């Protein structure tokens, strides 16, 4: 489990681990079915050691991880803010970007549309560079084929960003 995803889920309000799991499952749908239920506690424990979250035993009093309420530390908040604005295609997978939008909207940390715009700008710049390189390759060159792969993947991601923009625009307008 990516640490930043868990941190971002906590940005809305201090929560139990199981609440984070529920939010994650809602956001991921069937894609999240294979997720190991204990994974989130492992990540929370690591984050606590790193000083990015703190925990307090909840009303029940027991010191088991699933009874604790977790909250972001200032360092954790900083990490989330940095994560929301960074773009590093092709590395981040679909789920990570998706959860970025979900977490940003839920916590009111950033406008999902602005995150989509930033991502689109970066992807278009990469597309331009890859395409210029592809166009200057002779037709049917083997090296050109790799560039074509980059171009096609970027195009697919840009189309998905259009869908992200549509959905999050609608959701935002519905809430206003």
């Amino acid at each position, binding site marked *: 489990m990516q640490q930043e995803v868990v941190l971002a889920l906590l940005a809305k309000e201090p929560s139990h681990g199981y609440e984070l799991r529920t939010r994650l499952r809602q956001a991921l749908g069937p894609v999240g079915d294979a997720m190991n239920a204990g994974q989130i506690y492992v990540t929370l424990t690591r984050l606590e050691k790193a000083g990015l979250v703190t925990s307090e035993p909840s009303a029940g009093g027991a010191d088991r991880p699933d009874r604790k309420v977790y909250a972001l530390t200032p360092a954790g908040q900083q990490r989330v803010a940095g994560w929301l604005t960074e773009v590093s295609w092709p590395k981040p997978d679909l789920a990570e970007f998706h959860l970025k939008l979900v977490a940003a909207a839920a916590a009111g940390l950033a406008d999902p549309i602005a995150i989509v715009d930033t991502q689109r*700008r970066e992807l278009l*710049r990469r597309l331009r560079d890859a395409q210029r390189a592809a166009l200057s390759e002779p037709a049917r060159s083997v090296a050109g084929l790799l560039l074509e792969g980059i171009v096609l993947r970027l195009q697919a991601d840009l189309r998905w960003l259009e869908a992200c923009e549509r959905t999050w625009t609608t959701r935002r307008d519905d809430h206003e």
Partner: protein
Amino acid sequence: MSEAGGIAVVGARALRKEYGRDAGLVRAVDGVDLDVAAGETLAVMGPSGCGKSTLLHLLGGLDRPTSGELWLAGQRIDQLGERALARLRREAVGFVFQAFHLMDELTAAENVELPALLAGVPPRKARRRATGLLEQVGLADRAGFLPSALSGGQRQRVAVARALANEPLVVLADEPTGNLDSEATLDVLRLFDSLHTAGQTLVIVTHDARIAATADRLISMRDGAFIDQTLLTGGSAGNLGSLAGLEG
């Protein structure tokens, strides 16, 4: 505002185009400011119905704005008379459309030389120019073919050659790859890329990210207005390897 510096070839200030009235009022272009510098390739991107085609028609003087200022080749054109506008359009603007708009009964060469003939260029000179342009778009051996004997990509390249017939200050292209398969799209992209290298000013409106990415500058349009502007240079910072998953 102009990002590339230099003199603006095309300019708009508070440009508006409205259709209908009262409850049926549509603001197709809703307060647009724009400068396109000489030699710049600008792409305007947005979903269908965002007003980008209307904007292109206004910029090229094919349609009149409801309000605002329009500049073309250093002249204000929103108040210009019909005949003067037609002349300026013929001399300064080349259009490329999604559906090619070639004359079916004319050969490729005849289609390309037509704008020059209409502008009063002597026939032999117009033909010579058309032959050179067809060569430039890689279709010298198709000069005598009717459009019906050409593929979609070839027809669009003829249309680009025609757009260049009067050495226009600016070429305005409306969804130029919209009707083409990926192979033909690549041919047109190569062609636009070579025009860009040669210093031709280009404005392309499209919903296709691939053609938009040939531009120096990209404007995103929604509901008649510009919502975002991006300079497209330097995306991979020269490291294409990182885009294909190579480390370092």
